[in-house]
Structure formats: C-alpha cells, structure tokens
C-alpha cells in the first residue's frame, strides 16, 4: 500500500510537486494562552504528494497548530516557510491565499445553498455587471467534482446530501481555491466503512495532484494505511517524527504518552463505602450501548475516551436530559426512573456540565441566584422565596469553595473562569447530592484553579460523595480516579483498576489497539 502510493506520487511530473522537496515547514513554533503553554517550539514539515499524519492525545496541541496554519491564531515565536520563503498569516484569508485549506471535523458549509454555491462561496466567477455567472459556476463545480470522482449534482441543495457527500463538497471547495496544502482534521470520524474507503481513494488522488496533506486522526489503522510520514505531539511539544515505514504501533503509542504521571494530585485514600449507584444495560438508539457499572460511596470513577466516544451523551441520559431506549438505574438498591433533570436532582444525582458558559451559569443573574437555582424549593416557604435563607445557603457553599467575589450580589458574568466553575459546583453541592457527575471539570481553567478543583473533588469523595469524572486528560484521570472506565464508540472498551491504570492501557483501549505483545 505504502509503496504503491509513493509510486503514484513519483510518477507525477508536476514541477511544484516533486516528492521529497519540502513544501511547507514550521519550525520553533510557540503559542501561549494566559496560564497555558499550548505549543512550545514545535516543528512540522509537509511534503508535496505526501500524507503526513499528526498524532497526539487530546490537548497535545494539534488543533492549535491547525489554527496557526490556517491563520486563525498567530504564533508567539517561530517561523513558517513555504518553498523556503518565510510567510506570515495575519488572517485566515492570508493563509487561504497562500494555498492552505482545512477540511474540519464538522465541515463548515451552508445547508440552504446549492453544491456549486457552497464550493464557490467567497470567490464565485463573475460575469457581466459583476453578477455571479451561474452557468460557469455550475460548469466549474461539475468539473471539480468529477476530478475527485464524485457524482453530485452541482445544483443540489447541500441539505439533501449525506455526510460523505458533504465531505466531498468540502474537498471540492478546497480544490477550487488552488490549495497546495490540505489539512484533514479527523475526516473519517463520522463516515461508514464504504465512505472511508472512498475517502482513501480521494486522498490518493490529492497526492497524485501533488498536494501536501496533513492528516489528523486517532485511528491507528488508517494512519498506517494512508500516511507516508508522521509527527507526534505531546503536551504541546514535538515528541517525534519520521516516515511510517520506520515506525511501529507500539513506538507511536509510546511517543504519544511517553511520560509517567509526575504531576502531584491531591488524591486522598478513602475507604470505600457501600454501593450508591448501579446502572445496568443503559442503551441509546445512536449514542451508546449497554453501559453498566456500579459506584460506591467515597469513590471517584473516571470515564476516559476519545472525543465522540459517547461519554457526555451517556451522562446526559443518566441525568434525564435525553432518554435512553433501555436500561435501569438504582440508587442505594432502589430502582428509580429518571425522566427529567428535575427527577435526577431529587434522587440526588447532579451533573456539572462541560460547557460552563452554555450549560452552567446564567449570566445576568447574580451569584447567589445562580447558586440557589436548583434548590429554590428548599429556600421557599408557601411558594415564596425567602431571601435570607437563599443568601445563607449561597454563602455556605460559596465559602466552602473559597469563591473570590466582591459580593454575592455580583453578576456571575464578571467572575473569572475558575470562579464561575466554583459557582456551578456550589450550585450543585447546595442540592446535597449523593452522586456528582463532573464533565471535564478542569477544561479551560488556569492551573491554580485546576489544583483547587482537584483538591475539592478529593474532599467530596472523602466526605462520602460518589464522584463520576469525565475527563480527556490522561494525567488527571489517572491521578484522581480510583477506577477508570474507557469508552469507545458508545461502548465500554475496558475497565481499569490498580496496576492496569497506566497511560498506555488507556490509549490502547480508547483507540482500539490490541495489547502489545511483550
């Protein structure tokens, strides 16, 4: 497979597409966000007519480098060169002019426009009086689509196309701007087997056309099938790069995780109490299948998986936001039915969502009203809210979390991310739950607040609460959990305890790679 694809590229006589000659090169690229160093002096080389796979865990810096390449972020340091000349991408437009185009996980297209309009949006061929030349646009779209072997009517509405055809439209759009570098960010994530093999054919065509392709994927089988070279990022640093011919699966995994959990986590050893929550055979028509586990008092259970593995979807069903098609939940041995979040809250299950802004706080309401929102039945008498009780409840839990705010009257919108997270957690603790589900509890908050959240989580477990933590950060999941469930494509792929809880096992289970032969 590898040999043949290189042969196709080699046969191509195009002057701009000589294999082996560097097309685009990033070197010493650094990017810092307040409190987080996203990339530190990484380099990445792309060659015409070759596929370079970019591999790394969640948070390794892959998206950041894509955003730098497409001009959305500007690096703090380092150089980008094309054909040996240094270039700058101050805007997304500049990157696009330089021939760099990205096909994203969720392709950014317009449902109500036709295929041809989608392909040529922003650079439609103009006719007389500066009006769009529709006939030419359709002709050009047709020939572009033919070039990539797609049989889509350029006049069809995008709305009526399936995911695979949408990808083809996105690719045609990429070709319509004379792209030299094509970035594919997990393009197969939502495709069926047949569609994936069609995508592979297309990648071969792009290679034959002399495009340099950056292929981002979590799936090892497809990396080995399609890529010529690899680059591995780990924690924002370059962990290795080379040709696929010289590397094995095991070596790649090691480069991805190659570190011990050296960060100190404030995990207290807690004697586990009796079983609190038992979930069996929880199913959903499309998101997850036969999820079952039990949870004991004082336990922290980690849920690990790749993005899209169905972890949050399962938690949302458990919390009553969506309905499962089958399955039972019991609390302290008692079977319960959860039809709405209100049911879950009254049974003592609470869910702290991942997206604070969208799902957590109500901006515009003051801190204390945010905290007491799910507990109003307890702060009311005869249907009327008692402000004094409301205030004291809010004060009790915000001070337990060491919230820094001028006053509880203040709008939550004026708090920092870490403090907003504390308001959300205080809100749920105020309901006095027995099970708390934390979805990516430290995502997007600064290191200081992270440590505080970890410490607090540990205290919660020590005080007898059962904690479920969904996290994509390996150090966090290994450092904080008593036990880890790994999900893959909506199913439980592995349950890891004790010695089995190591980075390599996590990555293997999540990516579906067989255990290494030792």
């Amino acid at each position, binding site marked *: 497979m590898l040999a043949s694809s290189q042969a196709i590229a080699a046969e191509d006589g195009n002057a701009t597409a000589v294999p082996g000659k560097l097309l685009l090169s990033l070197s010493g690229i650094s990017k810092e*966000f*307040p*409190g*987080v160093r996203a990339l530190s002096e990484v380099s990445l080389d792309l060659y015409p007519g070759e596929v370079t796979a970019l591999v790394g865990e969640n948070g390794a810096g892959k998206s950041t480098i894509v955003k730098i390449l497409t001009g959305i972020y500007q690096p703090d340091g380092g150089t980008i060169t094309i054909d040996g000349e240094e270039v700058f991408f101050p805007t997304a437009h500049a990157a696009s002019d330089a021939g760099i185009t990205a096909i994203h996980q969720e392709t950014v297209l317009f449902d109500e426009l036709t295929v041809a309009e989608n392909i040529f949006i922003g650079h439609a061929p103009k006719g007389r009086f500066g009006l769009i030349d529709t006939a030419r646009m359709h002709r050009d779209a047709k020939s572009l689509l033919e070039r990539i072997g797609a049989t889509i009517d350029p006049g069809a509405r995008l709305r009526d196309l399936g995911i695979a055809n949408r990808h083809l439209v996105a690719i045609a759009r990429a070709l319509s701007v004379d792209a030299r570098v094509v970035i594919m960010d997990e393009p197969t994530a939502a495709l069926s087997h047949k569609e994936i093999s069609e995508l592979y054919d297309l990648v071969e065509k792009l290679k034959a056309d002399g495009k340099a392709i950056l292929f981002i994927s979590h799936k090892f089988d497809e990396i080995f099938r399609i890529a010529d070279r690899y680059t591995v990022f780990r924690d924002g640093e370059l962990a290795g790069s080379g040709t696929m011919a010289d590397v094995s699966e095991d070596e790649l995994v090691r480069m991805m995780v190659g570190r011990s959990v050296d960060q100190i986590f404030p995990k207290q050893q807690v004697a586990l109490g009796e079983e609190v929550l038992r979930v069996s055979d929880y199913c959903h028509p499309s998101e997850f299948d036969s999820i079952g586990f039990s949870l004991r008092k004082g336990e922290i259970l980690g849920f690990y998986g790749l993005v899209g593995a169905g972890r949050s979807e399962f938690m949302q069903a458990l*919390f009553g*936001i969506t309905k499962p098609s089958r399955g039972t939940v019991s609390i302290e041995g008692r079977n319960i039915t959860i039809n*709405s*979040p*209100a049911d*879950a*809250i009254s049974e003592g299950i609470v*869910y702290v*969502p991942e*997206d604070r*802004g*969208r*799902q*957590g*706080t*109500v*901006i*515009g*309401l*003051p801190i204390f*009203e945010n905290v007491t*929102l*799910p507990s*109003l*039945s307890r702060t*009311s008498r005869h*249907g*009327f*809210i008692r*402000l004094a009780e409301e205030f004291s409840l809010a004060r009790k839990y915000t001070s337990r979390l060491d919230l820094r705010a001028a006053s509880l*009257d*203040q*709008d939550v*919108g*004026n*708090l*920092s*991310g*870490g403090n*907003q997270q504390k308001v959300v957690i205080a*809100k749920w603790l105020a309901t006095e739950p027995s099970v708390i589900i934390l979805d990516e509890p430290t995502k*997007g*908050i*600064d290191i200081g607040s992270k440590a505080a959240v970890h410490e607090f989580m540990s205290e919660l477990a020590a005080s007898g609460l059962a904690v479920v933590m969904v996290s994509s950060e390996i150090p966090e999941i290994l450092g904080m959990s008593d036990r880890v469930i790994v999900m893959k494509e909506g199913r439980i792929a592995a349950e890891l305890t004790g010695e089995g809880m190591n980075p390599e096992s996590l990555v293997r289970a999540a990516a579906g790679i067989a255990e290494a032969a030792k």
Partner: protein
Amino acid sequence: MIQNAVKSREAILALAILAMTGLIATRFPGFIRPANLANVFNDTAPLIILALGQMVVILTRCIDLSVAANLALTGMIVATINTVAPDIPIGLIIAIAISLGALLGAFNGILVWKLDIPPIVVTLGTMTIYRGIIFLVSEGQWINAHEMSEPFKHFPRATIAGLPVLSWIAILCITLFAVIVARTPLGRAFFAVGGNPNAAVYTGIDVGFTRFMAYVFAGALSGLTGYLWVARYAVAYVDIAGGFELEVVAACVIGGVSIAGGIGSVAGAVLGALFLGVVKNALPVINISPFWQLAISGSAIIIAIAFNARAQRQKGRVILKTAEHAT
C-alpha cells in the same frame, strides 16, 4: 452591577417622564393637576396590565402578539354573556374573563411548548384566529352601551378612595407581578430560561413549561383587560384594540425589557407604559398633531433599544475579559 444598571435605566426613564410632564406643564399648567394625572394613569391602566404579562413572556425569550386579539375576543364573549344573562354578577364575569384569557394564552403556550413552533409565528397565527372567532361569535355585529347591563358598565368606573376601580386593578396587578417575579421559584425561572435556556435545563427547570406559564399569565391579564376595556368604553366589536399588541411590546422595550430575554423588571414595564400614556394624553392638549405622537413613540423605542444594546455590549466586554483569563 447589571442590576444597578437596570435600576439606573429605570431611574432615567422615570426622570424622562417627569421632565416631559414638567415641559408640558409650562405650556398647559392644568396637565399636572392631581385629578388630571390620575386620569392619565387610569387611561394607561390597560396598557400597564398588558405590559406586565408581555414582560414575563419576553423574559423567557418569547413574544405574544395575540394579546390584543385575546382582549377583544374575551371582551366580546363576556359582553355577549352579559346581553344574554344580565343578572350574572360582576365577580363571575371577571372570573370568566380571566379564565377565558388564560385558556387562550395556554393555547399559545402549548403550541410553543409541545410543537416547538417559533413564538412569533404562533402568536401571529393565533392573533388572526382569535380575531376571526370574534367575527363568528358576533356575526360582525356591535354590542352597544344600551345592550349592556348597568353594573357591567359601571364597575371599572366606580371610584374607591378617589381612584377608579380600573386604576386599582392595575395597581393590584403591579403588586402581584412584583411579588411573583421577585419572590417565587416560577418568577426566578422566567429569568433563568431567558438568560440561559441551556443552563436552565441542567438546573432541572422545565423550559417549555416555564414558557407555557408565561403565556398563561399574559393570556389571563389580556382576558381581564378584555372585560375592563369593553365595560369602560361600553362597546364591543371585532376591531377593538386593533394594533394594541405593538404598543404593549413597545412599552416593554422602552421599559428596558430585553427582547433577547432574561433582562427586565416590573418597574421598567410599568414606566414604559406610563411613558407612552403621557405622550398619548399630553400631546393633544398642547395642540401637537397625533402624527407627532407616533413619531415620538417610535423615537422612544429606538432610543431605548440603542440604550439597551449599549448596556449589553458593556456586559459583553467584561465577559470577554474573564474568558481570556480562563483559557
């Protein structure tokens, strides 16, 4: 902080109303005689009552364009009942008007809640439907003063402690809504649903039900106003209060209720209605053409929205700053 801004916005509106009244008084001193001011308030009472209902609907990120049609339909039905059975006591008539209005509001609410149709489309539809039903009920005929019973017509105009009953009912509604909005879990839910529907869901609030309740409130107040309107003017026909829904929405907007939901207050809605009431009552007495009245109301809406938009932008800046620290 935002609450302070809201309060100051209401203070600014109150000052504007005072300044306008003062200005009118220089041309026509009689305008600020207590009796005349009471008249202006009484005249504005229906607008105030409807603005209260509209406010809670807008708080939940919805809108109710059917309030005036609801008012007219309920008014026609209670007037018809009165002509058929003049002996039914006023208390029962009022109860019927409120229940009927609430039912019509609930119909809006169900469509928004269960069928998930955009509120503006739902209420634009029901607005037309309700007007159509009035025609069916009345067969296009008017019900005139001589057909209505004396107690039916007299009730809103009776004076208690120097103020007509109509005014007292408005004051009662204001008090009631001030308590509901500030001190009940449902009132809090209106703000949460409008401020962040997603977060509200995760908090165990039923967003659809909350919106439904807002429509029921708006409907009940429309029904109540329906009786008061028909009785006060002693006439019922298909087109009464035609276009009044826009004046109601305008009162809310001028009063600082954010069309985007989640921001607003009872005081704001009342002041917004009073502002329009003063404009409407004062301009004719100082010989300014009614066309100017429309222009002034329109300008007030645009100024209020520009003002709110600026306040929101300032809010946005602060959030961005914190978000930067967060990442």
